[in-house]
């Protein structure tokens, strides 16, 4: 079963408003998602929040596809209390691209973006406080990238701070 096109009032409204910047609206397993250009993600979030009542940013995360030219998927999940509906917004960004922060639209994005930065090394432009959140601030490397091994660690950090040869 593959994703099928998502036809609805909201989908056509978004397509009419954002035009080229939305490359597709699909549904898979009953879940709707929008594939959009990276620079359109935050405007879409804002539009959905103000015009359609999607006032709750559920989650913001990324997926690494190292073989692809546009290496990362950036995924925003929003929910509307009024419509009881969930929508995912997906953008593809190359390594080094700095997507705009969504903090101005949803405050939730603050920590979520920090986590994405921590785990994937994606920097968000305009984020008020972009620091590592789960790992120590001096840690080198981004663990959820596919080229980061499961047993890999920042040896120097471990030796300096924990006084042991290796954490493994």
């Amino acid at each position, binding site marked *: 079963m593959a994703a099928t096109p998502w036809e609805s009032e909201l989908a056509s409204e978004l397509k009419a408003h954002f035009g080229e910047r939305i490359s597709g609206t699909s549904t898979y397993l009953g879940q709707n998602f929008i594939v959009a250009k990276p620079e359109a993600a935050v405007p879409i979030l804002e539009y959905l929040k103000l015009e359609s009542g999607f006032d709750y940013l559920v989650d913001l995360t990324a997926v690494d596809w190292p073989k692809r030219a546009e290496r990362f998927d950036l995924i925003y999940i929003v929910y509307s209390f009024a419509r009881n509906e969930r929508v995912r917004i997906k953008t593809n960004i190359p390594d080094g691209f700095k997507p705009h922060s969504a903090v101005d639209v949803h405050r939730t994005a603050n920590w979520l973006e920090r986590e994405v930065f921590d785990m994937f090394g994606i920097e968000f432009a305009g984020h008020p406080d972009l620091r590592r959140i789960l*790992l120590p601030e001096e840690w080198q490397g981004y663990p959820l990238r596919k080229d980061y091994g499961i047993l890999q660690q920042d040896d120097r950090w471990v030796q300096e701070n924990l006084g042991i040869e290796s954490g493994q």
Partner: protein
Amino acid sequence: MPDATFLDSTELVLNMGPQHPSTHGVLRVILKLDGEKVLGTDCVIGYLHRGVEKIAENRTYAQFNPYVDRMDYVAAISNGLGYCLAVEKLLNVEAPERAQCVRVILTELNRIASHLLWLGTHALDIGAITPVFYCMREREEALKIFEKYCGARLTTHAFRIGGLIYETYDGFEKDINNFCDMFLPKVDEYAELLTGNRIWIGRLKGVGVLTADECKEYGVTGPVLRAAGVKWDLRKAQPYSGYQKYEFDIPTCETGDTYDRYLVRMEEMRQSVRIMRQAVASIPEGPIMGKVPKVIKPPIGEAYVSIEAPKGELGYYVVSDGSTQPYRLRVRPPSFVNLQALDRMVAGGLVADVVAIIGTIDIVLGEVDR
């Protein structure tokens, strides 16, 4: 935190945690104070980070199942339910009705166990020593049922992808009914100790107010959101595992302060009993395991599935590349997202309130840090 903090004589930076009994684990909060007044906070988290999401990418779907119990370890069954539902969604299978019903019973029992631990420790933080003993006493009964059912008390690994692995034991229904009969009067007992208690009210009323709009802005869910007056519960809004079959109410309050959150959780425990009673009276006959292949290989695709965990919306975003291991597994933890609102809730309050507010958000650091 700005560097100028130490130069200003009216401001004081106080470090709280990570080893502090009222942070419920290893949470470090850096408080910026003006006398007794809190100006701002900075949460330092990650002490319990084990890289659960990375581990998931290196385990098969079935192998990863026990790991999810270690996130919110006081509500392991809810974690397991969310994970199983997410993988079942990707596989496009549904657990048999009997399994769904038993899942609901155990999940609700776990919700009670989780809320009891919250109530006991929260009261202890505020200075009421007694409730924690009572809460632990009743929680023990719930854990005994888990132990009888699957052999484990805390990290239960009770569910499997596609259903259940264990049939209910002889006398399971009786144990649940006995627990319900025993437990309802106990909730009233706690309420008698606390609800009208002047110290309790004095410490909680008007403390850490988070309005409905602020909750939405910060993505806060669960009892915190309901205490602010939003009647929203995923069990009702987007029912899963057969929750639509049971009658129960969503308790809400209005002001969204710490006292309201206490009232909401107390009522939730009563509602959980209601659900358990209905479910246990109607456990259908039939298989407990759905038609799931021995080797779990979901088709290429992705799904986001969320459930109402005791702490709020617990979501799993799973990406499958058609292999036996998840390509990417993201956990949307309620505690992590809710904790972000701490800064807003404590700003302008007193140092002593910080303890009350951390308790009332009901965080589990295993889930915050993953």
